[in-house]
C-alpha cells in the first residue's frame, strides 16, 4: 500500500509494523507466527504427509501435555497444521492427534488439579482427543511396575501393604527417595514409562514432545551428569526409541522466549498455559536437583551463547544408537537397553542391587544417593 507510512516495516511482508525481533529479523505478528510455525512444520512434515494404506485408520500420534508453555504451544501449532490440512480436499490423510495430560496434582501435592482445563481444551481443539491420567495409572499400564518398585527401593519402602491404594503406594515409594536429584530422575522415568505405555496401548506410532531448544540442551547436560549418556540417542534425538515407537521434538529449533512470543499472539492459549514457577535465586546449589542446575546453567550461559547451547543438543544428536553395545537386557526401572560399555568400572555398583538395573537407575536408588 503506497500511501501507508510504517516506522519499521516487517522484513517479510513489508505491509505491517514489525513487532517482534527473531534471529535478527524484524517481523509483524503474522509473519512471526508463520516463521516460527515453519520451524515446527519442517519437523512434523513427515507425519503430515503420511498416507495410510486404504481401508486402515489414520495413524495416531501422542502429544503429552503438561499445560506449560512449550507443550501448549506445540499443541496449538500442530493442531493448526492439522486443521489446515483437513480443510483441503485432496490432502494426505496425515495423522490423528491424541493428547495425554498427567494430572499435576498426582505428581506434586502442591500443584492444583487441572479442573475444567480438560473440557476447555476439548472445546478449543475438537479434532484432537484428550485423556487425563494420574501418575499412578502407571501401575495399570505397566503391569510389572508394581513388582519392580519394592525391589528397587529396598528396605526403606514398605512393600507388602495391600491396604494401600495405588496412589498411596506410589507416594510411599517416591517418598523413600530422599535426594532431590534422584527423586526428579525417578519421577521422569515413571512419567516417560506411563506416557510410552499409554501411547502403545492406544496404538500411537510416535510421540511428539514439547521440549524447546534450551530445554533439550539442559536435558542433554543433565542426562550426561546423571550417567545416562547412552540414553541421549532417544532422550533428545528424533527417531526410533528402544520402546518401539518414535520420539520427535518438533520445537527443537525454538527458544523458550520465542515460544512465549508465539503464545502471546493467541488469546486462546493464555488461559490454558500454566506458567512455570520462576527459578528462585536464593536456593543453595546443593539443594537443587541436577535437572534444575542444568536449566539454570543453560539459561545463564544461553543468554550469552545461545548458539553454543543449541549446539550441545546437535552434538548429542550425532551419536548413533545403532552402535550401542548391549546384550539386549533391559533396565527393570526405565526399560531401556542396558549399555555394556567395555572396561567400565563397576565398583560403584553394590552387590545388593537387584540385577537388571542400568547404571543411572541404580545411582538413583534410595540409600545410594
Amino acid at each position, binding site marked *: 500500500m503506497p500511501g501507508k507510512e510504517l516506522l519499521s516495516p516487517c522484513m517479510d511482508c513489508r505491509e505491517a509494523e514489525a513487532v517482534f525481533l527473531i534471529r535478527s529479523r524484524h517481523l509483524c505478528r503474522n509473519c512471526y507466527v508463520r516463521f516460527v510455525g515453519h520451524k515446527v512444520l519442517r519437523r512434523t512434515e513427515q507425519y503430515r504427509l503420511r498416507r495410510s494404506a486404504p481401508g486402515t485408520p489414520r495413524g495416531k500420534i501422542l502429544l503429552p501435555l503438561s499445560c506449560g508453555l512449550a507443550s501448549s504451544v506445540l499443541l496449538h501449532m500442530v493442531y493448526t497444521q492439522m486443521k489446515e490440512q483437513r480443510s483441503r480436499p485432496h490432502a494426505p490423510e496425515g495423522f490423528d492427534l491424541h493428547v495425554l495430560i498427567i494430572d499435576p496434582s498426582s505428581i506434586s501435592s502442591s500443584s492444583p488439579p487441572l479442573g475444567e482445563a480438560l473440557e476447555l481444551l476439548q472445546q478449543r481443539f475438537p479434532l484432537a482427543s484428550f485423556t487425563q491420567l494420574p501418575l499412578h495409572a502407571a501401575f495399570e499400564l505397566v503391569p510389572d511396575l508394581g513388582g519392580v518398585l519394592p525391589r528397587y527401593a529396598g528396605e526403606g519402602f514398605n512393600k507388602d501393604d495391600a491396604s494401600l491404594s495405588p496412589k498411596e503406594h506410589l507416594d510411599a515409594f517416591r517418598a523413600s527417595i530422599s535426594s532431590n536429584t534422584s527423586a526428579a530422575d525417578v519421577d521422569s522415568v515413571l512419567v516417560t514409562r506411563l506416557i510410552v505405555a499409554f501411547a502403545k496401548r492406544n496404538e500411537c506410532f510416535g510421540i511428539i514432545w514439547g521440549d524447546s531448544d534450551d530445554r533439550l540442551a539442559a536435558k542433554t547436560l543433565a542426562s550426561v551428569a546423571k550417567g545416562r549418556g547412552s540414553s541421549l540417542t532417544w532422550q533428545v534425538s528424533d527417531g526410533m526409541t528402544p520402546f518401539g515407537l518414535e520420539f520427535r521434538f518438533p520445537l527443537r529449533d525454538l527458544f523458550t522466549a520465542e515460544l512465549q512470543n508465539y503464545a502471546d499472539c493467541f488469546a486462546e492459549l493464555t488461559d490454558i498455559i500454566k506458567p512455570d514457577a520462576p527459578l528462585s535465586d536464593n536456593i543453595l546449589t546443593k539443594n537443587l536437583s541436577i535437572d534444575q542446575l542444568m536449566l539454570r546453567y543453560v539459561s545463564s550461559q544461553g543468554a550469552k551463547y545461545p548458539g553454543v547451547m543449541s549446539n550441545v543438543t546437535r552434538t548429542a544428536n550425532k551419536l548413533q544408537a545403532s*552402535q550401542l553395545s548391549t546384550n539386549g537386557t533391559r533396565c527393570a526401572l526405565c526399560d531401556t537397553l542396558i549399555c555394556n*560399555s567395555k572396561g567400565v568400572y563397576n565398583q560403584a555398583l553394590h552387590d545388593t542391587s537387584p540385577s537388571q538395573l542400568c547404571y543411572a537407575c541404580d545411582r538413583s536408588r534410595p540409600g545410594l544417593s
Partner: protein
Amino acid sequence: MAPTLCFNCQKSRAVIIRPKNRHKLCRECFLSVFEAEVHETIISNSLFTRGERIAIGASGGKDSTVLASVLKTLNERHNYGLDLCLLSIDEGIKGYRDDSLETVKRNAVQYDMPLVIVGYGELYGWTMDQVVEQIGKKGNCTYCGVFRRQALDRGAERLGIQHVVTGHNADDVAETVMMNLLRGDLPRLSRGTNIVTGSSSSDIRRSKPLKYAYEKEIVLYAHHKQLDYFSTECIYSPEAFRGSARTLIKDLEKIRPSSILDIVRSGEEMAILVPILGDEQAAPEEASVGGCGSQNGRTRGSEMAEMEKTLAQNEASASLETEIKLPSQQTTAVPLPKTNTKKQKKMVQQKPAAKKQVLGKCERCGYITSQRWCHACTLLEGLNKNRPKTAIEMEISPEEEESSTTLRRQMEQVQLAG
C-alpha cells in the same frame, strides 16, 4: 560425643569423609581402599603386562606423585612385575618448573626409581622462557602443550619404553567430557574417556590408572601418606570451555558427589556411540588431555564467544545452504556419463577414506604426523623464522581443523553435494 568409627573396619576412629560416597573412614582403611580401587582399575582394564617397562609422567604435582607412590605399592603388593621409572619434562620455566623438578628428583630417591628429564631446550632448542620472550605471554600455552605431548613420547623412546602412564584423574576426565560436549567435539570426547590412548599408528601407549580416582581423594591420599609433592598449580587460567565445564562440575559435585564418576560413565557410553569415522581421526599428538590444566589451554578466554559467532554465521547461511543443496542432489541422481556403476561405487567407498588422516613421519624430526611437518616442527619453524604470529595460524592448522565441527560440517556438506 563418641568419635565416629570407621565405616569399613568399625574399629578405629574415622578421620576422613570420602568425597566419592561420603563414607567415614579411618586413615588405614582409606589408604587401602584407595589403593584397592586403583588396583581394580588396572586389573579390570588389563593395563599392564608382566615385565613391562613403564614410564610415569611425573610433574612433581599431586596427581603424578600419588600415581608413582600407588604404582610402587601395588607393584610390590600384587607382584605386577613392572619395571617403573619416572619421566619428567623440563619446559624451562624458571621459578616454576625448576622447583617442581626438585620434587621429582626427591621422589626418585624416595621411590627408588630411575628418573629421566627431557628438556625443551635440548629437544627443540627453545625453553618456554625463551618462547615467552619471543612471542609474549599470550598464546604460549599452545607451544607448551604441543611440545609436551611430543616430549613425553620422545623421552619414552629414549628410554626404550613403550608405555607412559599419566596422572589424569576422574575430575580431569569428567571435565573433558563436559568440555567437549559444550564444544561439540565428539571425537575428542571419545578419546578423552578412553583409559588407554595411542593407536596402532604410535609405538607408545598412554594410560590413566587414576581415571576413576577423585581429585579430592588424591589430595587426601597424598596428605595422609605424607607424600612429597609440589603444590603450585598452573598460573594460567583455563581455556573458556574447560573453565565453564570445571565450574559446572564443581556445582554438580555439591549436589551429588557421584556425579564425577557418572559423567565419566556417560562419557564411556557416548564414546561407543560416536560415529566410527571419528575414531579413525585420532591423531597420536592429540591423544592426551588436561595435564597441568593448561595443556589445552589458551589464555585468550574468548573461545566460547568465538564459537558463538561462528555458529551464528552458520545459522545465517543455513537458508542459503538448502538452496544450493537441492540442485546438486539432483545431479547426483543422474548417472555421470562414461562412468560405470562399479566405478561410482568405488568412489563412494573412497570418500570416507579421503577424510581420514594419512599418518606418516615428519620430514624434519621423524615424529608421527598426518602433515609434512609435525605440529612441533611447524611451531618451531615459526619461532626460528622469528615470526611469532604462527600461534594464530595454528588455530586453523590442518590438525586442528580435523576436530573442528564447523569444518567437519562443511566437509559433510561437500560430501552430500558431491
